[in-house]
């Protein structure tokens, strides 16, 4: 059994988002980068499956050299080896093509991703990879159990969930509560240093979209406070000023 987990290298969830170079580049100044929170759930579930089924576990990132500490962290959490496709992740299609190319060479039984990246929030890469490989893709998955060739999942839908069954090979976009995030221990951190991290060059595929420039939302004005003994005033404001009632 071979498992691949695709991880993003993204700004920590508390980061202040700013841009430089005339709003064309993300400002990394003072920003801490982490494994995408949803990717972390995928990785945590993969580590559990690896222990349960004796699987091998590879992590993959499409990114420049700066993402290697994030890949090392995934190795410390429990992946056996890592692959970095050496390119800025230009758009979801580009990333999906890189992942599909690696997957074609290695025949993974299960490819886990996050439901979405928290930088561009597309929630698109898993479906694209599924279509490129001709495999089913299921997302967002909140439970995933493997019984032989069979995979039993729970998928979140608006207002609830549905149970989904499929067979391997399969791609899933994960979210909580699929597993608890795993924190690397000292032994994991030590062994991660010597685990293989392979760097490969991207296939020269074009992109479908380009980011032209970034825009920040307009600053919020000051809050209008209403006295707690005059709650009716809030309703009047919502009705007459905001016109939302």
């Amino acid at each position, binding site marked *: 059994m071979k498992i691949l987990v695709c991880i993003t290298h993204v700004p920590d969830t508390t980061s202040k988002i700013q841009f430089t170079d005339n709003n064309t580049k993300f400002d990394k100044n003072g920003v801490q980068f982490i494994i995408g929170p949803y990717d972390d759930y995928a990785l945590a579930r993969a580590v559990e499956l690896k222990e349960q089924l004796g699987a091998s576990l590879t992590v993959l990132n499409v990114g420049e050299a700066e993402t290697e500490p994030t890949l090392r962290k995934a190795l410390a959490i429990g992946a056996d080896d890592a692959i970095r496709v050496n390119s800025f992740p230009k758009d979801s299609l580009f990333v999906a093509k890189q992942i599909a190319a690696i997957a074609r060479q290695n025949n993974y039984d299960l490819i886990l991703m996050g439901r979405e990246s928290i930088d561009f929030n597309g929630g698109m890469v898993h479906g694209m990879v599924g279509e490129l490989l001709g495999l089913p893709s299921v997302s967002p998955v909140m439970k995933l159990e493997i019984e032989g060739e069979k995979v039993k999942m729970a998928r979140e839908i608006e207002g609830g*969930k549905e149970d989904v069954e499929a067979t391997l090979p399969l791609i899933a976009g994960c979210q909580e509560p699929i597993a608890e995030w795993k924190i690397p221990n000292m032994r994991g951190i030590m062994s991660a240093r010597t685990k293989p991290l392979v760097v490969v060059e991207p296939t020269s595929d074009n992109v479908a979209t380009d*980011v032209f420039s970034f825009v920040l939302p307009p600053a919020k004005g000051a809050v209008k406070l209403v006295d707690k003994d005059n*709650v009716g005033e809030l309703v009047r404001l919502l009705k007459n000023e905001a016109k939302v009632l």
Partner: protein
Amino acid sequence: MSVLVYIEHAEGSVKKTSLEAISYAKALSEKLSSGDVIAVALGSISSDELAKAGTAGASKVLHVNDSKLTEGIIQAHAEAVAQVYKKVNATTLVLAKSSLGDAVASRLAIKLDAGLVSNVVELPDTSSGYKVKRSIYTGKAFAETQVNTEHKILAVRKNAVDLKTDGGSAAVEEVLLDIAPENFATKITSTDKATGEILLPEADIVVSGGRGMKGPENWGMIEELAHELGAATGCSKPVSDIGWRPHHEHVGQTGVKVAPTLYIAVGISGAIQHLAGVNSSKYIVVINKDPEAPFFKAADYGIVGDAFEILPKLTEAVKAQK
């Protein structure tokens, strides 16, 4: 030439977010002269209901009335929509962002060789090229995105355009498709879903409670206010983590991202991860006993005070204004 809209339905009705997607497509087609707006609906649903897509701007609805497609099997839906897209010679596919929509759109991007933009918040700017504004960093910023491909897929976020209600009735035509069995490789074995409720991701008004509500036994107050407002209920992450509320109600960075016209947050501190799910709301009201709660900085209106005193009064005041 035409714009195709993939619409979803639940409990016998077309989803409101899908009607918004149709309104978006109509505005797009008027702006760029891209021809008729045609909607495609999959699975069992009445023709009368589908004809209502016309009010939002569709001239025609193609109905693939195959009961195997009533459930949202991702691959099968993608294959069906791709076939219809080619049949009607569409150049653009529009759909509402949703759990199923995202999954289907990403597969269609490959099938149709189309540039896909998700979280679209405005009509494209075509003054030079084809630029689409989309929300990124969980609502903390926007990216002006150039689409280079001939075919385009736009997954539209709630409130990107106003819902159009003045269109006519759409012609409904049944279409037969041949969808290969391998597209049904995943099976939905059971569905567990709230019925009759206003669903959080689609709601115009959301009333959300945090840890300040102290316990699940106090949620009646949240529900009563929501009921008076015709709102959906939401919560913060710890509230769903402890099991006071179901997971699908949790709003934020790791939960549902909402974009209602009004978001009312009660007893929620306003951590950055929670704000990430709500900062696309048009108006935010915060009720919190702590005047220093960070949520007030993101709010339009606020009341400093005890939720347990304020909520019943607010519900009464809403009733009174009707």
